[in-house]
Protein backbone atom coordinates (compact mmCIF):
# COMPACT_ATOMS: atom_id res chain seq x y z
CA UNK A 1 0.00 0.00 0.00
CA UNK A 2 1.15 3.48 -0.85
CA UNK A 3 0.42 5.99 1.84
CA UNK A 4 0.97 9.71 1.62
CA UNK A 5 0.52 11.58 4.87
CA UNK A 6 0.30 15.36 5.26
CA UNK A 7 2.65 15.96 2.37
CA UNK A 8 3.84 19.50 1.76
CA UNK A 9 5.83 20.36 -1.34
CA UNK A 10 7.52 23.68 -2.01
CA UNK A 11 8.93 24.72 -5.38
CA UNK A 12 11.87 27.12 -5.52
CA UNK A 13 11.62 27.42 -1.75
CA UNK A 14 8.64 29.78 -1.99
CA UNK A 15 5.76 28.27 -3.93
CA UNK A 16 3.73 26.00 -1.71
CA UNK A 17 2.05 23.55 -4.05
CA UNK A 18 0.91 20.69 -1.86
CA UNK A 19 -0.44 21.66 1.52
CA UNK A 20 -0.90 18.65 3.66
CA UNK A 21 -1.98 16.11 1.09
CA UNK A 22 -2.98 12.66 2.30
CA UNK A 23 -3.99 9.78 0.06
CA UNK A 24 -3.80 6.03 0.16
CA UNK A 25 -3.53 3.51 -2.64
CA UNK A 26 -4.35 0.04 -1.31
CA UNK A 27 -2.76 -2.91 -3.09
CA UNK A 28 -4.67 -4.20 -6.06
CA UNK A 29 -6.99 -1.22 -6.41
CA UNK A 30 -7.42 1.59 -8.89
CA UNK A 31 -7.47 4.93 -7.17
CA UNK A 32 -8.40 8.07 -9.08
CA UNK A 33 -6.94 11.45 -8.23
CA UNK A 34 -9.00 14.22 -9.80
CA UNK A 35 -8.48 17.92 -9.90
CA UNK A 36 -8.38 20.93 -12.16
CA UNK A 37 -5.32 22.61 -13.62
CA UNK A 38 -2.74 23.58 -11.06
CA UNK A 39 -4.30 21.59 -8.26
CA UNK A 40 -1.02 19.75 -7.70
CA UNK A 41 -1.76 16.38 -9.27
CA UNK A 42 1.45 16.14 -11.24
CA UNK A 43 3.43 17.40 -8.27
CA UNK A 44 1.99 14.53 -6.27
CA UNK A 45 3.22 12.08 -8.89
CA UNK A 46 6.64 13.70 -8.91
CA UNK A 47 6.86 13.58 -5.14
CA UNK A 48 6.13 9.85 -5.14
CA UNK A 49 8.66 8.98 -7.83
CA UNK A 50 11.44 11.24 -6.58
CA UNK A 51 11.42 13.64 -9.51
CA UNK A 52 10.85 16.82 -7.50
CA UNK A 53 14.54 17.55 -7.49
CA UNK A 54 14.59 18.14 -11.23
CA UNK A 55 12.02 20.90 -10.78
CA UNK A 56 13.65 22.54 -7.78
CA UNK A 57 10.94 21.11 -5.56
CA UNK A 58 11.30 19.83 -2.02
CA UNK A 59 9.08 18.02 0.41
CA UNK A 60 9.07 20.11 3.55
CA UNK A 61 6.63 18.10 5.63
CA UNK A 62 4.89 14.79 5.66
CA UNK A 63 5.92 11.38 4.45
CA UNK A 64 5.39 8.88 1.68
CA UNK A 65 5.50 5.24 2.68
CA UNK A 66 5.37 2.27 0.36
CA UNK A 67 4.50 -1.07 1.89
CA UNK A 68 5.62 0.21 5.26
CA UNK A 69 8.96 1.66 4.17
CA UNK A 70 9.52 5.37 3.91
CA UNK A 71 10.47 6.46 0.40
CA UNK A 72 10.22 10.24 0.72
CA UNK A 73 12.91 11.92 -1.43
CA UNK A 74 14.58 8.68 -2.43
CA UNK A 75 16.44 8.59 -5.74
CA UNK A 76 14.16 7.88 -8.71
CA UNK A 77 16.12 4.75 -9.61
CA UNK A 78 15.64 3.34 -6.12
CA UNK A 79 11.92 4.01 -6.21
CA UNK A 80 11.54 2.32 -9.57
CA UNK A 81 13.45 -0.67 -8.21
CA UNK A 82 11.12 -0.84 -5.22
CA UNK A 83 8.18 -1.33 -7.59
CA UNK A 84 6.66 2.06 -8.39
CA UNK A 85 6.63 3.19 -12.01
CA UNK A 86 5.25 6.33 -13.48
CA UNK A 87 3.78 7.13 -16.87
CA UNK A 88 4.58 10.79 -17.10
CA UNK A 89 2.23 13.48 -18.25
CA UNK A 90 2.49 14.12 -21.97
CA UNK A 91 3.86 10.59 -22.60
CA UNK A 92 7.52 11.66 -22.70
CA UNK A 93 8.61 8.76 -24.84
CA UNK A 94 12.13 8.84 -26.26
CA UNK A 95 11.13 9.97 -29.73
CA UNK A 96 14.53 9.35 -31.31
CA UNK A 97 14.70 5.75 -30.13
CA UNK A 98 12.82 2.81 -31.58
CA UNK A 99 9.94 1.15 -29.77
CA UNK A 100 12.17 -1.73 -28.66
CA UNK A 101 14.84 0.65 -27.40
CA UNK A 102 12.24 2.60 -25.45
CA UNK A 103 11.13 -0.62 -23.83
CA UNK A 104 14.72 -1.54 -23.10
CA UNK A 105 15.09 1.75 -21.22
CA UNK A 106 12.02 0.88 -19.21
CA UNK A 107 13.64 -2.41 -18.23
CA UNK A 108 16.80 -0.70 -17.02
CA UNK A 109 16.26 -1.67 -13.40
CA UNK A 110 14.89 -5.09 -14.20
CA UNK A 111 17.15 -6.74 -16.75
CA UNK A 112 16.74 -10.26 -15.42
CA UNK A 113 13.09 -10.64 -16.42
CA UNK A 114 13.30 -8.46 -19.49
CA UNK A 115 12.32 -11.09 -22.02
CA UNK A 116 9.35 -12.30 -19.99
CA UNK A 117 8.19 -8.75 -19.38
CA UNK A 118 8.63 -7.92 -23.04
CA UNK A 119 6.35 -10.78 -24.06
CA UNK A 120 3.81 -9.82 -21.43
CA UNK A 121 3.76 -6.21 -22.56
CA UNK A 122 3.46 -7.17 -26.21
CA UNK A 123 0.46 -9.30 -25.33
CA UNK A 124 -1.26 -6.30 -23.77
CA UNK A 125 -0.30 -4.03 -26.67
CA UNK A 126 -0.39 -6.04 -29.90
CA UNK A 127 -0.19 -2.76 -31.83
CA UNK A 128 3.30 -2.16 -30.48
CA UNK A 129 4.39 -5.60 -31.58
CA UNK A 130 3.59 -4.70 -35.17
CA UNK A 131 5.65 -1.55 -34.89
CA UNK A 132 8.42 -2.77 -32.62
CA UNK A 133 11.26 -1.54 -34.83
CA UNK A 134 9.67 1.81 -35.71
CA UNK A 135 11.12 5.05 -34.40
CA UNK A 136 8.90 6.08 -31.51
CA UNK A 137 8.50 9.67 -32.68
CA UNK A 138 6.61 8.45 -35.74
CA UNK A 139 3.95 6.57 -33.79
CA UNK A 140 0.46 8.02 -33.51
CA UNK A 141 -0.61 9.70 -30.29
CA UNK A 142 -2.48 6.66 -29.04
CA UNK A 143 0.40 4.35 -29.87
CA UNK A 144 2.77 6.69 -28.07
CA UNK A 145 0.60 6.59 -24.97
CA UNK A 146 0.55 2.80 -25.19
CA UNK A 147 4.32 2.82 -25.53
CA UNK A 148 4.64 5.04 -22.47
CA UNK A 149 2.51 2.64 -20.44
CA UNK A 150 4.35 -0.37 -21.85
CA UNK A 151 7.68 1.19 -21.00
CA UNK A 152 6.62 1.70 -17.40
CA UNK A 153 5.40 -1.89 -17.22
CA UNK A 154 8.80 -3.20 -18.29
CA UNK A 155 10.07 -2.49 -14.78
CA UNK A 156 7.45 -4.92 -13.49
CA UNK A 157 5.88 -2.41 -11.09
CA UNK A 158 3.53 -3.22 -8.24
CA UNK A 159 2.11 0.28 -8.45
CA UNK A 160 1.61 2.16 -11.68
CA UNK A 161 1.11 5.91 -11.57
CA UNK A 162 -0.60 7.22 -14.67
CA UNK A 163 -0.49 10.96 -15.13
CA UNK A 164 -3.22 12.08 -17.54
CA UNK A 165 -3.17 9.10 -19.88
CA UNK A 166 -6.17 10.53 -21.74
CA UNK A 167 -4.38 13.77 -22.59
CA UNK A 168 -4.84 14.67 -26.23
CA UNK A 169 -6.46 11.42 -27.28
CA UNK A 170 -9.65 10.85 -29.23
CA UNK A 171 -12.63 9.49 -27.22
CA UNK A 172 -12.30 6.05 -28.77
CA UNK A 173 -8.66 5.84 -27.87
CA UNK A 174 -9.45 6.98 -24.34
CA UNK A 175 -11.81 4.03 -24.04
CA UNK A 176 -9.12 1.72 -25.31
CA UNK A 177 -6.59 3.06 -22.81
CA UNK A 178 -9.19 2.76 -20.08
CA UNK A 179 -9.75 -0.92 -20.85
CA UNK A 180 -6.01 -1.49 -20.85
CA UNK A 181 -5.71 0.09 -17.42
CA UNK A 182 -8.38 -2.29 -16.14
CA UNK A 183 -6.51 -5.22 -17.69
CA UNK A 184 -3.24 -4.18 -16.07
CA UNK A 185 -4.99 -3.83 -12.74
CA UNK A 186 -6.43 -7.33 -13.09
CA UNK A 187 -2.89 -8.65 -13.38
CA UNK A 188 -2.29 -7.45 -9.85
CA UNK A 189 -0.86 -3.99 -10.38
CA UNK A 190 -2.28 -1.21 -8.23
CA UNK A 191 -3.00 1.95 -10.19
CA UNK A 192 -2.97 5.57 -9.17
CA UNK A 193 -4.84 7.29 -11.98
CA UNK A 194 -4.33 11.02 -12.14
CA UNK A 195 -6.90 12.57 -14.44
CA UNK A 196 -8.84 15.60 -15.48
CA UNK A 197 -11.22 13.36 -17.34
CA UNK A 198 -13.24 12.55 -14.24
CA UNK A 199 -15.83 10.42 -16.01
CA UNK A 200 -13.22 8.08 -17.45
CA UNK A 201 -11.29 7.85 -14.20
CA UNK A 202 -14.24 7.29 -11.90
CA UNK A 203 -15.84 4.73 -14.19
CA UNK A 204 -13.00 2.29 -13.53
CA UNK A 205 -11.68 3.39 -10.14
CA UNK A 206 -12.44 1.77 -6.81
CA UNK A 207 -11.83 4.91 -4.86
CA UNK A 208 -11.44 8.55 -5.75
CA UNK A 209 -9.92 11.71 -4.39
CA UNK A 210 -10.72 15.24 -5.48
CA UNK A 211 -7.91 17.69 -5.17
CA UNK A 212 -7.97 21.44 -5.15
CA UNK A 213 -5.12 23.87 -4.51
CA UNK A 214 -2.87 21.28 -3.00
CA UNK A 215 -5.21 19.37 -0.72
CA UNK A 216 -7.86 16.73 -0.83
CA UNK A 217 -11.26 18.35 -0.62
CA UNK A 218 -13.31 15.24 -1.07
CA UNK A 219 -12.86 11.52 -1.14
CA UNK A 220 -14.95 8.42 -1.27
CA UNK A 221 -15.75 5.30 -3.26
CA UNK A 222 -15.82 6.08 -6.96
CA UNK A 223 -19.54 5.39 -7.24
CA UNK A 224 -20.32 7.84 -4.49
CA UNK A 225 -18.25 10.54 -6.14
CA UNK A 226 -19.96 9.91 -9.44
CA UNK A 227 -23.30 10.60 -7.78
CA UNK A 228 -22.13 13.61 -5.88
CA UNK A 229 -23.73 16.85 -6.99
CA UNK A 230 -20.60 18.95 -6.74
CA UNK A 231 -18.49 16.48 -8.68
CA UNK A 232 -21.21 16.26 -11.31
CA UNK A 233 -21.43 19.98 -11.63
CA UNK A 234 -17.75 20.86 -11.64
CA UNK A 235 -16.06 17.79 -13.08
CA UNK A 236 -18.60 15.94 -15.16
CA UNK A 237 -20.44 18.93 -16.60
CA UNK A 238 -23.85 17.51 -15.64
CA UNK A 239 -26.38 19.65 -13.91
CA UNK A 240 -29.04 17.76 -12.05
CA UNK A 241 -32.28 17.93 -14.03
CA UNK A 242 -31.92 14.50 -15.57
CA UNK A 243 -28.30 15.10 -16.54
CA UNK A 244 -29.10 17.65 -19.23
CA UNK A 245 -26.45 20.04 -20.34
CA UNK A 246 -26.92 23.51 -19.02
CA UNK A 247 -27.19 26.52 -21.25
CA UNK A 248 -24.61 29.03 -20.19
CA UNK A 249 -27.17 31.75 -20.77
CA UNK A 250 -28.96 30.62 -17.66
CA UNK A 251 -25.91 30.41 -15.48
CA UNK A 252 -25.90 32.59 -12.44
CA UNK A 253 -22.45 32.16 -11.08
CA UNK A 254 -23.22 33.40 -7.60
CA UNK A 255 -25.96 30.88 -7.21
CA UNK A 256 -24.02 27.70 -7.02
CA UNK A 257 -20.74 27.51 -5.23
CA UNK A 258 -18.59 24.59 -4.33
CA UNK A 259 -19.77 23.62 -0.91
CA UNK A 260 -16.33 22.58 0.23
CA UNK A 261 -15.03 26.08 -0.21
CA UNK A 262 -17.62 27.26 2.34
Amino acid sequence: MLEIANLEVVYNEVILVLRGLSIQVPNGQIVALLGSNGAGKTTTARAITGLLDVHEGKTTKGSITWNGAEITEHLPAKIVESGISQVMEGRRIFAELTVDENLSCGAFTNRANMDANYDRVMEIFPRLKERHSAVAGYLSGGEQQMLAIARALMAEPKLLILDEPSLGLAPMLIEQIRDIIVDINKQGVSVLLIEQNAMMALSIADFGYVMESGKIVMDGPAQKLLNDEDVQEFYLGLHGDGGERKSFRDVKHYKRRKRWLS
Partner: protein
Amino acid sequence: MINATLQLAQAGSGATFVQTLTKALALGSVYVLIALGFVIIFKATQVLNFAAGALSMAGAMFMTILISDGGFPLLPFDNPLAPAEGETASIAVFFVHVLIALALAAILGLVIERLTIRPMVGQPLFAMAVITLGIEIAIRPFNLDATALEGRRLGVPWGADSWVWGGAVVPKSYIVAMVIASIAGASVLFFFRTKLGVAMRAVAFDQEAAMAQGINVGRVFAIAWAMGTALAALGAIVYGMAPFPPGGSVSQEIHPLLALRVLPVIVLGGLDSVAGAIYGGLIIATAEVFAGQYLSQWNSTLGSGYSTIVPYLVMLFMLLVKPYGLFGTPEIRRV
Protein backbone atom coordinates in the same frame (compact mmCIF):
# COMPACT_ATOMS: atom_id res chain seq x y z
CA MET B 1 60.26 19.02 -39.35
CA ILE B 2 62.08 15.76 -39.08
CA ASN B 3 59.88 13.60 -41.19
CA ALA B 4 61.51 12.89 -44.47
CA THR B 5 58.68 10.58 -45.41
CA LEU B 6 56.35 13.52 -45.61
CA GLN B 7 58.33 14.85 -48.52
CA LEU B 8 56.18 13.36 -51.19
CA ALA B 9 57.99 11.31 -53.72
CA GLN B 10 58.41 12.97 -57.05
CA ALA B 11 57.05 9.88 -58.69
CA GLY B 12 53.99 9.76 -60.92
CA SER B 13 50.81 11.59 -60.02
CA GLY B 14 49.14 8.29 -59.16
CA ALA B 15 51.60 7.66 -56.38
CA THR B 16 51.21 11.23 -55.20
CA PHE B 17 47.48 10.76 -55.05
CA VAL B 18 47.76 7.53 -53.05
CA GLN B 19 50.15 9.17 -50.61
CA THR B 20 47.91 12.20 -50.20
CA LEU B 21 44.89 10.02 -49.69
CA THR B 22 46.49 7.84 -47.01
CA LYS B 23 47.78 10.92 -45.25
CA ALA B 24 44.30 12.42 -45.34
CA LEU B 25 42.71 9.27 -43.99
CA ALA B 26 45.33 9.01 -41.25
CA LEU B 27 44.87 12.61 -40.14
CA GLY B 28 41.13 12.02 -40.44
CA SER B 29 41.50 9.07 -38.06
CA VAL B 30 43.01 11.35 -35.43
CA TYR B 31 40.23 13.87 -35.93
CA VAL B 32 37.60 11.14 -35.74
CA LEU B 33 38.94 9.85 -32.42
CA ILE B 34 38.98 13.23 -30.73
CA ALA B 35 35.66 14.26 -32.27
CA LEU B 36 34.08 11.04 -30.97
CA GLY B 37 35.23 12.03 -27.50
CA PHE B 38 33.55 15.41 -27.93
CA VAL B 39 30.38 13.92 -29.32
CA ILE B 40 29.91 11.28 -26.63
CA ILE B 41 30.22 13.83 -23.86
CA PHE B 42 27.94 16.27 -25.64
CA LYS B 43 25.38 13.62 -26.50
CA ALA B 44 25.04 12.38 -22.97
CA THR B 45 25.45 15.55 -20.95
CA GLN B 46 24.83 18.42 -23.41
CA VAL B 47 28.16 19.87 -22.28
CA LEU B 48 30.51 21.18 -24.90
CA ASN B 49 33.81 19.90 -23.56
CA PHE B 50 36.37 22.65 -24.03
CA ALA B 51 38.81 20.67 -21.88
CA ALA B 52 39.25 18.08 -24.62
CA GLY B 53 42.63 19.49 -25.63
CA ALA B 54 44.22 19.31 -22.21
CA LEU B 55 42.60 15.99 -21.38
CA SER B 56 43.72 14.34 -24.61
CA MET B 57 47.24 15.59 -24.11
CA ALA B 58 47.21 14.39 -20.52
CA GLY B 59 46.32 10.92 -21.82
CA ALA B 60 49.30 11.01 -24.17
CA MET B 61 51.45 12.19 -21.26
CA PHE B 62 50.46 9.13 -19.24
CA MET B 63 51.64 7.05 -22.15
CA THR B 64 55.06 8.68 -22.32
CA ILE B 65 55.54 8.52 -18.56
CA LEU B 66 54.67 4.83 -18.61
CA ILE B 67 56.69 3.72 -21.57
CA SER B 68 59.65 6.10 -21.86
CA ASP B 69 60.21 6.88 -18.19
CA GLY B 70 59.15 3.45 -17.02
CA GLY B 71 57.18 4.86 -14.13
CA PHE B 72 53.56 4.94 -13.13
CA PRO B 73 52.25 8.47 -12.64
CA LEU B 74 51.96 9.29 -8.93
CA LEU B 75 53.08 5.81 -7.89
CA PRO B 76 56.53 5.04 -6.43
CA PHE B 77 57.25 1.80 -8.25
CA ASP B 78 58.53 1.24 -11.75
CA ASN B 79 56.73 -0.14 -14.73
CA PRO B 80 58.14 -3.65 -15.26
CA LEU B 81 56.99 -3.67 -18.87
CA ALA B 82 58.82 -0.53 -19.87
CA PRO B 83 61.60 -1.08 -22.42
CA ALA B 84 65.10 -0.64 -21.05
CA GLU B 85 67.29 2.27 -22.02
CA GLY B 86 68.13 2.25 -25.70
CA GLU B 87 65.69 -0.48 -26.76
CA THR B 88 62.36 0.08 -28.44
CA ALA B 89 59.15 -1.44 -27.19
CA SER B 90 57.78 -4.49 -28.90
CA ILE B 91 54.43 -4.04 -30.57
CA ALA B 92 52.58 -6.01 -27.88
CA VAL B 93 54.17 -4.00 -25.08
CA PHE B 94 53.34 -0.78 -26.90
CA PHE B 95 49.66 -1.60 -27.17
CA VAL B 96 49.46 -2.80 -23.58
CA HIS B 97 50.76 0.62 -22.61
CA VAL B 98 48.24 2.31 -24.83
CA LEU B 99 45.50 0.47 -22.98
CA ILE B 100 46.91 1.39 -19.56
CA ALA B 101 47.19 5.03 -20.64
CA LEU B 102 43.59 5.00 -21.82
CA ALA B 103 42.48 3.51 -18.51
CA LEU B 104 44.31 6.28 -16.66
CA ALA B 105 42.73 8.88 -18.94
CA ALA B 106 39.31 7.37 -18.28
CA ILE B 107 39.94 7.62 -14.54
CA LEU B 108 40.94 11.25 -15.00
CA GLY B 109 37.68 11.83 -16.85
CA LEU B 110 35.71 10.15 -14.06
CA VAL B 111 37.37 12.28 -11.39
CA ILE B 112 36.75 15.48 -13.31
CA GLU B 113 33.13 14.58 -13.92
CA ARG B 114 32.56 13.72 -10.28
CA LEU B 115 34.25 16.82 -8.90
CA THR B 116 33.20 19.51 -11.33
CA ILE B 117 30.34 18.40 -13.57
CA ARG B 118 28.07 16.37 -11.30
CA PRO B 119 27.49 19.19 -8.79
CA MET B 120 26.43 21.36 -11.72
CA VAL B 121 23.65 19.11 -12.98
CA GLY B 122 20.60 21.24 -13.59
CA GLN B 123 22.61 24.46 -13.81
CA PRO B 124 22.79 26.42 -17.07
CA LEU B 125 24.77 24.65 -19.76
CA PHE B 126 26.77 27.78 -20.34
CA ALA B 127 28.13 27.56 -16.81
CA MET B 128 29.20 23.97 -17.41
CA ALA B 129 30.90 24.87 -20.67
CA VAL B 130 32.86 27.58 -18.88
CA ILE B 131 33.83 25.07 -16.19
CA THR B 132 35.33 22.82 -18.84
CA LEU B 133 37.24 25.83 -20.11
CA GLY B 134 38.58 26.28 -16.58
CA ILE B 135 39.63 22.63 -16.49
CA GLU B 136 41.49 23.12 -19.75
CA ILE B 137 43.38 26.06 -18.29
CA ALA B 138 44.08 24.21 -15.03
CA ILE B 139 45.43 21.04 -16.63
CA ARG B 140 47.45 22.62 -19.41
CA PRO B 141 50.36 23.80 -17.20
CA PHE B 142 50.83 20.24 -15.92
CA ASN B 143 51.05 19.05 -19.50
CA LEU B 144 53.46 21.78 -20.48
CA ASP B 145 55.63 21.29 -17.41
CA ALA B 146 55.77 17.59 -17.96
CA THR B 147 56.71 17.87 -21.61
CA ALA B 148 60.28 18.79 -22.13
CA LEU B 149 60.82 21.42 -24.77
CA GLU B 150 61.94 18.87 -27.34
CA GLY B 151 58.93 16.65 -26.64
CA ARG B 152 58.68 13.27 -24.95
CA ARG B 153 59.10 10.08 -26.89
CA LEU B 154 56.14 7.74 -27.22
CA GLY B 155 58.38 4.78 -28.02
CA VAL B 156 56.51 3.77 -31.15
CA PRO B 157 57.94 0.37 -32.17
CA TRP B 158 57.77 0.97 -35.89
CA GLY B 159 59.13 4.49 -35.65
CA ALA B 160 58.84 6.30 -38.96
CA ASP B 161 59.04 3.19 -41.11
CA SER B 162 57.06 3.05 -44.29
CA TRP B 163 55.77 0.59 -46.78
CA VAL B 164 56.37 1.29 -50.45
CA TRP B 165 53.53 0.31 -52.72
CA GLY B 166 54.22 0.88 -56.40
CA GLY B 167 56.09 4.09 -55.88
CA ALA B 168 53.81 5.39 -53.13
CA VAL B 169 55.43 5.69 -49.71
CA VAL B 170 52.91 4.88 -46.99
CA PRO B 171 54.10 5.26 -43.38
CA LYS B 172 53.10 2.36 -41.15
CA SER B 173 51.75 4.78 -38.57
CA TYR B 174 49.13 5.99 -41.04
CA ILE B 175 47.78 2.50 -41.47
CA VAL B 176 47.85 1.89 -37.71
CA ALA B 177 45.96 5.17 -37.18
CA MET B 178 43.25 4.05 -39.61
CA VAL B 179 42.94 0.65 -37.98
CA ILE B 180 42.70 2.11 -34.48
CA ALA B 181 40.13 4.70 -35.53
CA SER B 182 38.05 2.06 -37.34
CA ILE B 183 38.03 -0.16 -34.26
CA ALA B 184 37.19 2.76 -31.98
CA GLY B 185 34.45 4.05 -34.29
CA ALA B 186 32.90 0.62 -34.63
CA SER B 187 33.03 0.11 -30.87
CA VAL B 188 31.30 3.42 -30.25
CA LEU B 189 28.60 2.62 -32.79
CA PHE B 190 28.16 -0.79 -31.17
CA PHE B 191 28.08 0.76 -27.71
CA PHE B 192 25.06 2.86 -28.62
CA ARG B 193 23.15 -0.35 -29.35
CA THR B 194 23.88 -1.87 -25.95
CA LYS B 195 21.76 -1.46 -22.83
CA LEU B 196 23.95 1.28 -21.45
CA GLY B 197 24.29 3.03 -24.79
CA VAL B 198 20.54 3.08 -25.30
CA ALA B 199 20.18 4.48 -21.79
CA MET B 200 22.73 7.16 -22.66
CA ARG B 201 20.71 8.17 -25.72
CA ALA B 202 17.59 8.23 -23.59
CA VAL B 203 19.27 10.50 -21.05
CA ALA B 204 20.41 12.75 -23.87
CA PHE B 205 16.90 12.98 -25.23
CA ASP B 206 14.93 13.55 -22.03
CA GLN B 207 16.75 13.50 -18.73
CA GLU B 208 13.70 13.55 -16.51
CA ALA B 209 11.89 10.82 -18.40
CA ALA B 210 15.06 8.73 -18.25
CA MET B 211 15.19 9.19 -14.50
CA ALA B 212 11.57 8.11 -14.29
CA GLN B 213 12.59 4.82 -15.94
CA GLY B 214 15.08 4.22 -13.15
CA ILE B 215 18.12 5.10 -15.23
CA ASN B 216 20.89 6.40 -13.01
CA VAL B 217 21.71 9.64 -14.81
CA GLY B 218 24.82 10.31 -12.74
CA ARG B 219 26.32 6.99 -13.75
CA VAL B 220 25.56 7.65 -17.40
CA PHE B 221 27.33 11.01 -17.13
CA ALA B 222 30.35 9.35 -15.52
CA ILE B 223 30.59 6.72 -18.25
CA ALA B 224 30.28 9.36 -20.95
CA TRP B 225 33.14 11.35 -19.47
CA ALA B 226 35.32 8.31 -19.04
CA MET B 227 34.76 7.22 -22.63
CA GLY B 228 35.10 10.73 -24.00
CA THR B 229 38.39 11.36 -22.23
CA ALA B 230 39.81 7.98 -23.22
CA LEU B 231 38.91 8.53 -26.88
CA ALA B 232 40.48 11.98 -26.86
CA ALA B 233 43.61 10.52 -25.28
CA LEU B 234 43.72 7.81 -27.93
CA GLY B 235 43.54 10.53 -30.58
CA ALA B 236 46.47 12.37 -29.02
CA ILE B 237 48.54 9.18 -28.75
CA VAL B 238 47.90 8.29 -32.38
CA TYR B 239 48.80 11.81 -33.39
CA GLY B 240 52.11 11.38 -31.58
CA MET B 241 53.20 8.57 -33.92
CA ALA B 242 56.07 9.42 -36.20
CA PRO B 243 55.07 10.92 -39.56
CA PHE B 244 52.54 13.19 -37.91
CA PRO B 245 54.10 16.59 -37.15
CA PRO B 246 55.05 15.91 -33.48
CA GLY B 247 57.40 13.23 -34.83
CA GLY B 248 57.00 10.28 -32.52
CA SER B 249 56.58 12.26 -29.34
CA VAL B 250 54.22 14.40 -27.36
CA SER B 251 54.97 17.94 -28.29
CA GLN B 252 54.55 21.06 -26.26
CA GLU B 253 53.71 23.11 -29.29
CA ILE B 254 51.52 20.90 -31.38
CA HIS B 255 49.50 18.75 -29.01
CA PRO B 256 47.72 21.44 -26.98
CA LEU B 257 46.19 22.84 -30.17
CA LEU B 258 45.01 19.49 -31.49
CA ALA B 259 41.52 19.72 -29.99
CA LEU B 260 41.10 23.18 -31.46
CA ARG B 261 41.66 21.69 -34.89
CA VAL B 262 38.87 19.24 -34.21
CA LEU B 263 36.35 22.01 -33.66
CA PRO B 264 35.58 22.30 -37.41
CA VAL B 265 35.03 18.55 -37.47
CA ILE B 266 32.28 18.53 -34.90
CA VAL B 267 30.69 21.65 -36.32
CA LEU B 268 30.65 20.04 -39.76
CA GLY B 269 29.39 16.67 -38.57
CA GLY B 270 26.97 17.89 -35.95
CA LEU B 271 27.65 18.13 -32.24
CA ASP B 272 25.52 15.18 -31.26
CA SER B 273 26.12 12.70 -34.04
CA VAL B 274 28.54 9.78 -34.01
CA ALA B 275 28.23 9.39 -37.76
CA GLY B 276 28.83 13.12 -38.03
CA ALA B 277 32.10 12.84 -36.11
CA ILE B 278 33.28 10.06 -38.42
CA TYR B 279 32.31 11.70 -41.72
CA GLY B 280 33.28 15.14 -40.46
CA GLY B 281 36.74 14.00 -39.43
CA LEU B 282 37.39 12.35 -42.78
CA ILE B 283 36.00 15.23 -44.84
CA ILE B 284 37.89 17.92 -42.94
CA ALA B 285 41.16 16.01 -43.03
CA THR B 286 40.74 15.30 -46.73
CA ALA B 287 40.09 18.96 -47.45
CA GLU B 288 43.07 20.00 -45.38
CA VAL B 289 45.57 17.50 -46.76
CA PHE B 290 44.49 17.72 -50.38
CA ALA B 291 44.56 21.50 -50.29
CA GLY B 292 48.04 21.31 -48.81
CA GLN B 293 49.21 18.98 -51.56
CA TYR B 294 47.54 20.21 -54.69
CA LEU B 295 47.55 23.95 -54.12
CA SER B 296 51.20 23.98 -53.13
CA GLN B 297 52.34 25.65 -56.34
CA TRP B 298 50.59 28.80 -55.13
CA ASN B 299 52.49 28.75 -51.89
CA SER B 300 53.93 32.18 -52.58
CA THR B 301 50.46 33.69 -52.92
CA LEU B 302 48.64 31.75 -50.22
CA GLY B 303 51.48 31.70 -47.75
CA SER B 304 52.90 28.56 -46.22
CA GLY B 305 50.63 26.72 -43.81
CA TYR B 306 47.51 27.89 -45.61
CA SER B 307 46.18 24.33 -45.48
CA THR B 308 45.54 24.62 -41.75
CA ILE B 309 42.89 27.28 -42.35
CA VAL B 310 40.99 25.17 -44.86
CA PRO B 311 39.07 23.33 -42.09
CA TYR B 312 37.91 26.62 -40.66
CA LEU B 313 36.73 27.79 -44.05
CA VAL B 314 34.71 24.61 -44.38
CA MET B 315 33.35 25.19 -40.88
CA LEU B 316 32.42 28.77 -41.69
CA PHE B 317 30.58 27.68 -44.80
CA MET B 318 28.81 24.94 -42.88
CA LEU B 319 27.68 27.31 -40.17
CA LEU B 320 26.19 29.57 -42.82
CA VAL B 321 24.21 26.91 -44.65
CA LYS B 322 23.48 24.28 -42.02
CA PRO B 323 24.34 25.47 -38.51
CA TYR B 324 23.53 22.16 -36.86
CA GLY B 325 25.92 20.19 -39.06
CA LEU B 326 25.54 17.40 -41.57
CA PHE B 327 24.08 14.86 -39.18
CA GLY B 328 23.21 16.94 -36.15
CA THR B 329 19.76 17.25 -34.67
CA PRO B 330 18.20 20.48 -35.88
CA GLU B 331 16.46 21.37 -32.61
CA ILE B 332 19.55 21.08 -30.50
CA ARG B 333 19.23 22.96 -27.26
CA ARG B 334 21.26 26.08 -27.06
CA VAL B 335 24.39 26.25 -24.95
